[in-house]
């Protein structure tokens, strides 16, 4: 009876998990987002399994089809790793320079924008309206991309 090459299969699925768990899960926490520890660990295990599976597929008694499949699976795993690193370190830095942004020590440019209750809000209001019945000490403006 032929045994399945479980190393290749497990390595293949684990490399899928290692790649897609970054955007779907580990991107949520700064510790696993800023440097992808969790994903690189998963990839390390996946690549070891793929290597073992590949070695097994290239033993003399194995069929050509299992060699082709194992090679494709291993190549796909490496491609997924390259893709994840490309996403984080190359695409992640595709941001405009914004050299004209207001500097520390300057007054923040005034604005009037609509809040989520459709009411106009000025920066002056944000700086004046009490927080917990006390005058605010400051305002944190977070510019973000909007919902995905």
């Amino acid at each position, binding site marked *: 009876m032929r045994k399945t090459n479980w190393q290749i299969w497990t390595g293949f699925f684990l490399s899928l998990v290692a790649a897609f768990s970054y955007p779907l899960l580990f*991107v*949520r*926490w*700064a510790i696993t*987002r*800023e440097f992808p520890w969790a994903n690189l660990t998963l990839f390390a295990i996946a690549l070891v399994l793929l290597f073992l599976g590949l070695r097994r597929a290239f033993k003399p008694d194995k069929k050509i089809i299992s060699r082709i499949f194992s090679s494709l699976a291993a190549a796909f795993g490496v491609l997924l790793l390259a893709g994840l690193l490309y996403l*984080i*370190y190359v*695409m*992640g*830095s*595709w*941001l*405009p320079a*914004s*050299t*004209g*942004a*207001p*500097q*520390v*020590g*300057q*007054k*923040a*440019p*005034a*604005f009037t*924008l*609509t*809040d*989520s*209750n*459709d009411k106009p*809000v000025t*920066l*002056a209001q*944000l*700086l004046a*309206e009490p*927080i*917990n019945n*006390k*005058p*605010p*000490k*400051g*305002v*944190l*403006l*977070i*510019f*973000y*991309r*909007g*919902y*995905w």
Partner: protein
Amino acid sequence: MRSFEKNLNQFSEAGIRVVGISVDTPDETRKYMIQKAGYSFTFLSDPKLETIRRYDLVHANEIASGKDIARPAEFLLDSSGTIRWRMITENFFKIAQPEQVLQATKALQ
């Protein structure tokens, strides 16, 4: 963003109002950020990128959305409206953390 929501009490205690600004309309913000994602801080809509442009934070033709949006950036203002701390990241995956900002708020009067 999520980490700021989790630490919102600490910001309130420090007297800091947390405000999110994006191109999303008030409708979209209500639906996605408040009702679906459970955020409770102040959200402001800048669909025409007027304020985003004044702060030089326009990310034109952003690849994932295919439209003009704000690039990530954070500014801490004191009560006079002067910028006391800011972060303009060079990598989308590395944005300000609440601990950093709370540290910077200690210098505010």
